C-alpha cells in the first residue's frame, strides 16, 4: 500500500520542486505525502490527489456561487415578468457603451487568466506574471468604469426604491432620444407647450405644491402609492362612475372588435389618419406591453366616444389639457411611451403620464446584482494579487499549478455572471 502513494502521482517528478510550501503546516513529521513533493499537504498521498481535491472543491464552490446569485436572478425574472414596462423604461437609463466596454474588459481578463494557467503549466514564469498583471489591470478598469456609472446613477437620483427620485424623465434620456427620436421630440414639444400654457394662464394652472408641470402630481401620486397602483386599473374602475359607463360600452365592444380587429392594426401603421384616435390605435398595436384593463382600448377603437371633459375645452385644467394632447400623439410617438409604461390610460378613459410602477425596484435589482458582482471582482483582485506574489516566488510550474488554475476558474465564473448581467440589464428590447 505504500506503492499506492506513488501510483497516484501521475505528474512526473522533477528536480524543480522549490523550497518550503504553505501546504506543509507541520514540516518534517515523516508522515503522509512523499518528501519529494514539498507542495503536497501532509494529508494527501500524492500531488494528483491534492490537485483533484482542489478541483472538485473549487467546482463545488462555483456551484454555491451560482446558487448564491440565483436568488437574484430569480427576483429579476419575477419582477421582469410582472412589470415588463419597468424594465423597458429603466434600461434607457443604463449606459450601454460603458456596459459593453466592461464586457470587453472582462472577456479580455478571462483570456489572460486562462493564459496564465497555461503559462504556469508550461513553466513560463515571466508569462504567468504578465498575464496575472493584465488580469488585475482589467479588473481595476472594470471597477473604475463601474464607479463612473454608479456615480452618474447617484447623481441622477436613480437609486433603490426608498431613495428613488430620478432627475430626468425617460424622453430626456439620450438612449431614448436616439432610439425613438419622434417620441422624444413629441414629448419635448408637449412639455414646452405645457410650460407656455403655464406662463400665459398662471392662475388657471396653479397646481398643488406649486409644481410647474401638470404631470408631476400624477407621477408623485403613482410613485408614492405603488401598492395601491399594483391593484391595477380594474380596482379603480369600479370606484368611478365614469368607468361604469365605460364598462357598459366595453361590453358592447367585443362584438365590434371581433368583427373588425384589422382596422385597429392598420391604424397603428398609418400615422395620424384620425385626429382623435391615434394614441389609442398605438395602444392597440403595442400588444400586451402594459396591463391596462383589456376593456379600455376596445371602445375607442371606434372613433366616436371622446372623453366627456373634452367638451369643456376653454376652461380645462392641465390634466385634461394634457390628456387631450396625449391623445394626439401619433402611433410612432406613442408606442415607445406605451411600452415603457410612461403613457397609460386611466381607468376612466383619458391618458396620463406616469412613471412606471415599481420603477425603483429595477434599480434595487440593478445595484444589488452589479454590486454583488463587483464585490466578487474585488475579491478576485485580492486573490490574483496573492497569486502574483506566489508566482513571484516561482511557486508554479508543470507539477504545481492548482491554485492558479482554481483562481482562474473562479475568475471565469465572475466573468460569466457579468456576461449574463449585461444583456439582462442593459440590452432589454
Amino acid at each position: 500500500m505504500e506503492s499506492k502513494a506513488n501510483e497516484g502521482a501521475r505528474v512526473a517528478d522533477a528536480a524543480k520542486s522549490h523550497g518550503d510550501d504553505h501546504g506543509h503546516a507541520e514540516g518534517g513529521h515523516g508522515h503522509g505525502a512523499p518528501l519529494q513533493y514539498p507542495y503536497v499537504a501532509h494529508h494527501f498521498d500524492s500531488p494528483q490527489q491534492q490537485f483533484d481535491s482542489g478541483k472538485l472543491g473549487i467546482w463545488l464552490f462555483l456551484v454555491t456561487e451560482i446558487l448564491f446569485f440565483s436568488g437574484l436572478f430569480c427576483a429579476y425574472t419575477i419582477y421582469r415578468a410582472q412589470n415588463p414596462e419597468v424594465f423597458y423604461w429603466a434600461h434607457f437609463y443604463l449606459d450601454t457603451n460603458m456596459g459593453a466596454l466592461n464586457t470587453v474588459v472582462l472577456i479580455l481578463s478571462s483570456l489572460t487568466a486562462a493564459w496564465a494557467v497555461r503559462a504556469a503549466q508550461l513553466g513560463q514564469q515571466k508569462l504567468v506574471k504578465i498575464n496575472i498583471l493584465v488580469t488585475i489591470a482589467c479588473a481595476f478598469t472594470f471597477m473604475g468604469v463601474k464607479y463612473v456609472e454608479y456615480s452618474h446613477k447617484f447623481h441622477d437620483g436613480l437609486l433603490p426604491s426608498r431613495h428613488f427620485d430620478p432627475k430626468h424623465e425617460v424622453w430626456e434620456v439620450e438612449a431614448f432620444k436616439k432610439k425613438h427620436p419622434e417620441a422624444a421630440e413629441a414629448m419635448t414639444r408637449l412639455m414646452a407647450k405645457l410650460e407656455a400654457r403655464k406662463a400665459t394662464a398662471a392662475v388657471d394652472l396653479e397646481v398643488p405644491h406649486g409644481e410647474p408641470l401638470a404631470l408631476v402630481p400624477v407621477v408623485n401620486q403613482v410613485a408614492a402609492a405603488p401598492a395601491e397602483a399594483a391593484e391595477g386599473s380594474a380596482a379603480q374602475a369600479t370606484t368611478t362612475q365614469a368607468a361604469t359607463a365605460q364598462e357598459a360600452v366595453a361590453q358592447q365592444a367585443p362584438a365590434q372588435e371581433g368583427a373588425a380587429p384589422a382596422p385597429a392594426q392598420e391604424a397603428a401603421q398609418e400615422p395620424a389618419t384620425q385626429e382623435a384616435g391615434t394614441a389609442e390605435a398605438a395602444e392597440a398595436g403595442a400588444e400586451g406591453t402594459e396591463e391596462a384593463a383589456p376593456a379600455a382600448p376596445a371602445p375607442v377603437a371606434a372613433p366616436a366616444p371622446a372623453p366627456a371633459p373634452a367638451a369643456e375645452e376653454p376652461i380645462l385644467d392641465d390634466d385634461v389639457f394634457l390628456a387631450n394632447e396625449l391623445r394626439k400623439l401619433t402611433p410612432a410617438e406613442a408606442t415607445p411611451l406605451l411600452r415603457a409604461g410612461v403613457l397609460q390610460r386611466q381607468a376612466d378613459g383619458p391618458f396620463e403620464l406616469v412613471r412606471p410602477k415599481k420603477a425603483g425596484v429595477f434599480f434595487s435589482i440593478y445595484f444589488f446584482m452589479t454590486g454583488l458582482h463587483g464585490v466578487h471582482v474585488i475579491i478576485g483582485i485580492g486573490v490574483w494579487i496573492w497569486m502574483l506574489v506566489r508566482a513571484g516566488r516561482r511557486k508554479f510550474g508543470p507539477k504545481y499549478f492548482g491554485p492558479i488554475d482554481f483562481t482562474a476558474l473562479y475568475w471565469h465564473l465572475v466573468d460569466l455572471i457579468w456576461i449574463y448581467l449585461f444583456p439582462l440589464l442593459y440590452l432589454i428590447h
Partner: protein
Amino acid sequence: MAAPTTAADLVVAPSKPEDNYLTHDKGILSWIFTLDHKRIGLMYLVSVLVSFALGGFFALVVRTELLTPGKTLITHDQFNQAFTLHGAVMVFLVIIPGIPAALGNIILPLQLGAKDVAFPRLNLMSYHLWVLGALFLLASMVISAADTGWTFYVPYSTSTTTAVIPAVFGAFILGFSSIFTGLNFIVTIHKLRPPGMTWFRMPLFLWALYATAVIQVLATPVIGITLLMLIVERLVGLGIFDPSLGGDPVLFQHFFWFYSHPAVYIMIVPAFGVISELICAFSRKPIFGYKFIALSSLAIAFLGFLVWGHHMFTSGQSVLAGAIFSAITFLIAIPTAIKIFNWLATMYKGRIHLDTPMLYALAFLWVFTIGGVTGVFLATMSVNVHLHDTYFVVAHFHYVMMGGSITAFMGGLHYWWPKFTGRMYPERAGRVGAILVFLGLNFTFFPQFILGTRGMPRRYYNYLPEFTGLHQFSTIGAYILGAGFLLTAIYLLKSVRSGPKAPANPWGATTLEWTCQSPPPYYNFHEAPVVNRGPYDNYDKLRFDKKSRGYVPAE
C-alpha cells in the same frame, strides 16, 4: 460486500499511548489555529454544547412564562424575543452544526480512514466563521434582541425596531460556515477514501453526512442571498420584499423555505446516520438493508428540495401548487420509513445491549416516528389549513428536531465520547439521563399536540384559561427535560477529569474509528488503512477483554 475478512485490520494501531491529538501540541493558540479536524471538531462540540445550554435556557424561560395565562415572568415583548432567540440559537447554532460539524468533523476522517478532511484550512475557517456568526447573534441579543421568530418573515422583519440586522447577519455568516463544512465533507468523501474503501463499504454515518453536505452546498447559498437581501432591504429599502415599496413578501417566504425546508434535512439526515451506527453497534449485527438506508438518505436530500411550498399552504399559494407540494411531501415518508423499518429489522434477533447510546437510539425510534407521522398530517393540505400556526406544528417540529436530531446527537455524543476524550462516562448516570430526557421530551411536547388541535396558536403570550392545565403539564415536562440535560452535563464534565480510561473499542463496534486508540493519535492512521470488508462485518471476530474493558480482535 462481505469480502473475505481478516481480523488483522481491527488491530489497534501501535502508538505511544501518551501521544494523542489532545496532547500533541500545547497552549491555547495550538487550539485556536489548529488544522487538525479532531481539535476543530472538539471546539465545535464545546461551542455547540454551550449554545445548547443558552438555547435551553431561553426555552425554559418561554415555558415558565406559559405556566399561567397573562404575565408570569416577563413582558410580552420579552416573550417574543425569548422565543426568537430560542429558535435562532437552537436552529443556527446547535442543530445545524451539531452532528455534521461537531461529531462529523471528528468522526468522518476516522471512519473513512483518512488523515484529515480535504481542506483543513477551510475547516478551521468554517469554525471561525461559526464563532463570528454566533457573536453577531449574541450582539443582537445584547443590543435589542430580534422578535421576529427565527423565520425573519417580512414585512415585520423590515419594520420592527429590534436589532434584526445583527441577527440576520449572524445567520448569513453561519450559512457560509455550513457551506464550507459541507464542501469539505463532499470532497473528503470523494477523494480521500483509502484503498479498498468503496462507496458501499462506507459506514452509513458517512452516507448521511454526504447527503447532508449535498444539501448544505446546494441550499444554503440561497438563504445566504435571501438574508443579504433582507439586510439591504432594511438598510436602503430595495422594494423586493417590502410591500410598502412595491415588493412581494411571499417571495421572501419562497426563498426562505427553499433553503429552510432542505435545512430541516440538514438537521435530521445526519441524525439518521448516527442512529444507523448505534443500532448496528448495540445489536452486534450488520445493518439490514445497507444500500436502502444509504440511498434513502440521498433520496431524502433530493426530495427535500421539492417540498418547500408545504410551509406556505396559507400564504396565498395556488391550490394546484399546494397539491403538488403536498404530494411530494408525502413521498418523503417513503425513504424515511425505509430507514425505520431497516433499523427495526437490524435489531431483530440481534444481541441488544442497552447502553446509554442505545437508549437514545431507541428513544429516537419512538419519538421520531411520532414526529414523522404528524408531519404527514401537516402535509395534508386540508388538515394543514386548520393546524397551521398552532401548537400542533410546534409539537411536530420539536418531536422531529428535539426528539430526532438532539436525541441522536446525544446518542452519538455518548457513543463517541470515549473516542473524543479517552474517558468513559458513568453508565448508570447515563441511563438515568437518557430516560429523563425521553420522558421530559414526551411530557413537554405531547400535550402540545392536544393544545394545537384545540386551537392554541403558536407564539402567543397569552391564552384562554382552559388551556392552562395542558400548558402546565408541558412546562413541567420541560423542567424534567432540563434536569435530564443538567445531569448529563454534570457527569460528562466529571468524566473528563476523573472517568476511567477508555479502551480503543469499548462497544464492540466494527467501523474504522474504533481501530485507533482513544483518543486518536494526531495523524489518525499511521498508514492508510486497507479496507477489505463491509463496515458492519466482523462483529463475531471481536471478543471482550476484561483487562482493558474493551473489545479486541478474537484470535
